[in-house]
């Protein structure tokens, strides 16, 4: 069924003839008969094929069962940004979409060069020396970073309390695999507790994974933390939202050894959580510890500049059980999308986006903060485009419900309140509507 089997019956017959069998069944002779019959029965019980139109209609019906909010004030790892139309068009170009990993550089320069450009952009944003071609997402980037920082005698990974809880869970899962230890350094007033950090740092610590702005929106004092971590001989991994990097000091400027994060804000739609883009960049010294695909510049025999997958000696297809990571397929098209986004926006456009996020979030915080029950949880702490109001649970529920009725997705309920987010898409009209709605709930 479907229009994806080009061979006609006549052609199939010819082909079988050339092979020297009379039916496809003969080709399956190695499969035990009972096993084949069972499999055939099983597919028989699946729904039959339908036309493209019917399949699409079924998907449309599912899509309609989801609510597309008119305004989204929720972040927590997934951000509602405008995606320039040219970016979507670039990312939909058929050859980009249908090619695979550029194993054959002669017919893949377009993809290789894009990744090289992406790596460069990533270095510029993070202030690092080298980046890889992507890992699955921000959470696995954290787990991979933990792994790349471990050394023979330093195996403990410290996780900042402000790290996205899903990242923490992911590092925990990977650590279970690696039989490695991890410990959480708690927060104090929304930021990493430096005293607790000092206590936690010992000679067994491989790295600290810090998020800034952290999960609660607060900008951490990365330089101070870097000093402590480095003094203890450990590595500092900083996870940062790429939009924030345009405005705030980059991980590199702040002394991080590895910068990681999720590139979703760079032109990738919300998509109910995926596919997104895990990015990783590091200082020169750590390049050969980076996992994943890496593209490098070289030349052909005629001296023409070109690009190839490089440093493959780190990878699974060469090193097998000794590889630095098992990653193979990654998020290449998302990396291409991010490169296109940064190219289409340019430094000015991205600066404007960052600034609008900052201003809108602060406007929202100022307005919300004045409402009883919506006071800022960490007043005075610097934040970028997310912040927490210390809202009690019952009020949280009522406020979010009231907003939902206006087709506004409010902030995320977290421990101790609501985690709000505003981006350049949240117009002040939307913010005002939100604030009015919340006020009405209180009244």
């Amino acid at each position: 069924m479907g229009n994806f089997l080009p061979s006609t019956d006549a052609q199939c017959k010819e082909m079988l003839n050339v092979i020297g069998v009379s039916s496809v069944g003969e080709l399956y002779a190695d499969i035990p008969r009972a096993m084949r019959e069972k499999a055939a029965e099983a597919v028989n019980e699946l729904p039959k094929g339908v036309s493209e139109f019917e399949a699409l209609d079924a998907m449309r019906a599912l899509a309609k069962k989801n609510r597309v909010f008119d305004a989204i004030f929720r972040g927590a790892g997934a951000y509602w940004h405008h995606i320039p139309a040219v970016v979507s068009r670039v990312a939909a170009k058929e050859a980009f979409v249908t090619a695979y990993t550029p194993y054959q550089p002669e017919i893949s320069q377009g993809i290789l060069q894009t990744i090289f450009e992406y790596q460069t952009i990533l270095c510029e944003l993070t202030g690092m020396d080298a980046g890889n071609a992507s890992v699955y997402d921000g959470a696995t980037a954290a787990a991979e970073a933990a792994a790349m920082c471990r050394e023979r005698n330093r195996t403990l990974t410290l996780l900042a309390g402000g790290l996205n809880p899903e990242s923490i869970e992911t590092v925990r899962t990977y650590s279970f695999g690696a039989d490695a230890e991890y410990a959480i350094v708690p927060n104090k007033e929304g930021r990493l507790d430096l005293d607790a950090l000092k206590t936690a740092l010992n000679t067994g610590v491989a790295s600290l994974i810090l998020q800034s702005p952290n999960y609660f929106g607060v900008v951490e004092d990365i330089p101070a933390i870097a000093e402590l971590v480095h003094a203890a001989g450990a590595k500092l991994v900083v996870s940062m939202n790429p939009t924030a990097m345009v405005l705030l000091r980059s991980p590199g400027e702040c002394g991080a050894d590895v910068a990681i994060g999720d590139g979703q804000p760079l032109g990738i739609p919300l998509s109910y959580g995926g596919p997104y883009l895990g990015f990783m960049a590091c200082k020169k010294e750590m390049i050969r510890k980076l996992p994943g695909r890496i593209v490098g510049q070289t030349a052909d025999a005629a001296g023409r500049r070109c690009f190839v997958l490089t440093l493959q000696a780190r990878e699974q297809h060469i090193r097998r059980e000794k590889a630095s990571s098992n990653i193979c397929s990654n998020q290449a098209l998302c990396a291409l999308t991010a490169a296109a986004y940064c190219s289409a926006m340019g430094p000015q456009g991205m600066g404007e986006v960052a600034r609008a996020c900052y201003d809108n979030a602060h406007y929202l915080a100022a307005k919300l903060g004045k409402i009883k029950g919506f006071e800022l949880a960490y007043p005075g702490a610097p934040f970028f485009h997310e912040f927490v109001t210390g809202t009690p649970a019952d009020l949280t529920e009522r406020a979010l419900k009231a907003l939902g009725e206006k087709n506004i997705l409010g902030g995320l309920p977290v421990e101790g309140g609501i985690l709000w987010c505003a981006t350049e898409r949240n117009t002040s009209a939307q913010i005002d509507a939100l604030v009015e709605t919340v006020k009405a709930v209180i009244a």
Partner: protein
Amino acid sequence: MKLSFERSVPGRRGCRAPQSAAPHAAIEESLLRKLPPRLPELSETDVSRHFSELERQVYGVNDGFYPLGSCTMKYNPAVNEQAASLEGFSGIHPLQPVESAQGAIEALVRAKELLCQLVGMDEMTFQPAAGAHGEFLGLLLIKRYHEERGDCARKKIIVPDSAHGTNPATASMAGFTVINIPSAQDGTVDLAALRAAVGPDTAGLMLTNPNTLGIFDKNILEITDIVHGAGGLCYYDGANMNAVMGAARPGDMGFDAVHLNLHKTFSTPHGGGGPGAGAVGCKECLTPYLPNRLPVRLADGTFGYADSEHSVGRMKFFCGNFLVVLRALTYITMLGGDGLQEASENAVLNANYLRALLKSELPAANEGFCMHEFVVSLESLKKETGVSAMDVAKSFIDAGMHPPTMYFPLIVHEALMFEPTETEGKETLDAAAEAVRNILARAKTEPEALHLAPVTTPIGRPDEVGAARNPILRYDFTEADQ
């Protein structure tokens, strides 16, 4: 061609952001970035042209035959992309309330039910983002299984030497010791070697069937029995599932867990290297260990998520590569059980046909029939003419086609691995065979010429050794300033 940074004009600007009507908020000076990132400064015209030029230097499935073995480069229906771009899917937040995402969760549940039935598993998660990620989860399930039973000595994973590199790499990542076992003469699992390898330290076996030689291991039930008999579990690398839909179910072969590369068998596009999705299915014995946020059909007919306190934990953010799963669901819905079975049958037919066409010229790495792919060895050609598998592969480019996979699996010398997939017509296979014949003829008459292939591409073979020795991994802005 120029890099975007070389097209950049200082001060030129791209897309504007909406101006915020909110008042300009103060920022503490010390928090501010000092050096602005040197992003390309381009107009939209520049962006359009830059990426158009780049696309013209990419060979995709839309450009022709792409028999890259092990990667299942089938044609991906355009409708998949349409479904994935519906705003009701692409515009929803992963943390929006379950009530407002019923369609999305239903999609996940439907996909899982269909795929479980297809592969004979009891439960499935879509959290892993790719095959290798799925393998990792699979081995963690096995690890937790033994642990929870207090069976703590099981630290070894058996992997045949024909396995994909991700298999041993994954086993290491999951904290296991890898026991490589050599393949039998005919490329299947050497039962004696397997029997010798298993024991009380065996955590499990990782196997792909058909294997990377394209052979369906007819001893599969014996194999899984041996492992189970020793107390281990069996993990199925489903990357080759495109051969056997409707013909054999991993569950029926005796496997306890399986990952499916949705981007291979289930027709979601490869995107130049990703994103994919590595759905992991398992038998009931492993179900409690699956990641939390498992999409489920609730008693009241609505959809939601289930957690388990035994879960090995989360593999990544949110629910995995959701839009990839959605494309797979679109595909499965359109093809139906009958269509999936036909797809596999035609994949097998095509591979055997191409293999038959090439048989007289190129010794296949094994006897009998193949499944959806096959491996040939150019060892004797190399000896006779000096022309390597690489040379032949590169010459394929000059014939207007994507080369087969080179030098994999590692157990075959000068290997080329062809996977035509079911979406190719006979005439494409005929043309490919003709191209190979021509290349082999030239190998005899002008071997030096083949060392220089490809010659029809914008660049010749790059210096890969130089690239690795002296890594240039980002654009050097100082170059431009000179």
